[in-house]
């Protein structure tokens, strides 16, 4: 310890502390803060910004991604997508989009809503996320089974979204869903917002079914619409846990012969069915990890630019300002633009 930092010619000086006081620069590289600062002697950036450190950050981010992928396999429902979606908002935003695009408002129909509800339950029960069920059942089968006789019918699906507005925006931004959303062949609509566990993640499925009844007299009136809205706000929803992948279910075997997944259990949610909160919101968690790492690296790069300028250091490295621009762009995109959710 005594001779640890002392040059040979000053070996005889009494006390290492005295020496450090006299030559503060000699202990600089042993201080923690030094890891954050660029090095003049090596013409390099800070230790926490060298290639090895960046590689470690990449490995940690990859590891976190893998952990978030594996947790649902061992603890279904721990990770999930927090949401606050409800039928009245979905109807409001759908009709708003239709008005903006010159289409008439849709009326909420009880039979279409019931068909949508059954489709959502079927997806949770059989663990699929598609318009056609593994047993070959199509959206029209759900509609017809509710006794809705239609000329035109359509279906939009969404999952993992946070709000009703985002769901409708996503449908509007996809050409095929948009043609349903603002389609002039439809007079009525039905929605289902169902919470449950799919692929191990707590999530909310949204089913939107469109229709035009064969007989105009079958059209829903304002009273029926009000009843459907009230029902959607008060009813209890059954959620299914432990859903398996779609590929595990044979597609051409009759529904009665399909074996249900062993870990399937039924849980009745008695609280407000439109809200779902997982233990860990996967959207928030991944955004936090991403922004934290990006922010840390971006801040170190900013310190590097300012410190180098102040001390007049020149380094043999890439363009720090360019790295800051790229990291800043990534953080801004993640923070302001990226939203959770999928539509089919």
């Amino acid at each position, binding site marked *: 310890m005594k001779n640890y930092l002392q040059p040979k010619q000053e070996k005889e000086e009494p006390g290492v502390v005295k020496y450090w006081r006299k030559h503060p620069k000699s202990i600089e590289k042993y201080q923690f803060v030094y890891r954050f600062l660029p090095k003049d002697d090596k013409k390099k950036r800070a230790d926490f910004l060298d290639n090895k450190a960046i590689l470690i950050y990449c490995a940690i981010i990859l590891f976190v991604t893998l952990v978030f992928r594996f947790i649902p396999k061992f603890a279904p429902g721990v990770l999930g997508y927090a949401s606050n979606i409800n039928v009245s908002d979905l109807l409001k935003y759908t009709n708003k989009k239709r008005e903006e695009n010159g289409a008439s408002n849709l009326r909420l129909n009880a039979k279409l809503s019931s068909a949508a509800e059954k489709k959502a339950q079927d997806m949770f029960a059989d663990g699929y996320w598609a318009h056609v069920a593994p047993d070959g059942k199509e959206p029209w089968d759900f509609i017809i089974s509710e006794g809705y006789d239609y000329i035109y019918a359509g279906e939009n699906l969404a999952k993992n979204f946070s709000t009703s507005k985002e769901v409708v925006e996503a449908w509007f931004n996809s050409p095929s869903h948009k043609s349903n959303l603002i389609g002039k062949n439809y007079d009525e609509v039905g929605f289902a917002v169902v919470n449950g566990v799919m692929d191990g993640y707590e999530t909310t499925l949204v089913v939107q079914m469109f229709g035009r009844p064969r007989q105009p007299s079958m059209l829903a009136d304002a009273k029926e619409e009000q009843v459907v809205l009230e029902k959607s706000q008060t009813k209890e929803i059954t959620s299914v846990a432990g859903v398996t992948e779609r590929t595990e279910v044979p597609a051409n075997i009759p529904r009665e012969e399909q074996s249900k997944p062993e870990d399937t259990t039924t849980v009745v949610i008695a609280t407000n069915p439109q809200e779902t909160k997982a233990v860990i919101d996967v959207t928030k968690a991944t955004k936090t990890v991403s922004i934290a790492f990006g922010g840390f690296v971006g801040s170190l790069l900013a310190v590097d630019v300012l410190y180098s300028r102040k001390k007049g250091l020149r380094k043999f490295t890439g363009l720090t300002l360019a790295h800051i621009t790229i990291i800043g762009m990534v953080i801004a*995109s993640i923070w302001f633009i990226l939203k959770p959710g999928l539509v089919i």
Partner: protein
Amino acid sequence: MLENIKENRIEYFILIVAVITFIILVYTFRFNKGVLILLSGLGAVLYIFWGIIHHYIRGKLTKNIVYEYSLFGLLSFLLFFVVLSF
């Protein structure tokens, strides 16, 4: 800092145009995760090439510089990927 920008005016101009284009594309395809993953991968590769070409033109290209741009490209892609893969 300003000297650095003045010195590399054309390169920074190209980078800023690319960044603005990227943000517009990300916003346009914000509901299509497949396209977003593709865009972030493409953006990372373009950035790596941008850095390598810049240093090559100035005769300052070393192995370390190539690693550095590759790692920053990879880091940018992974920051997107961790959010987009869920």
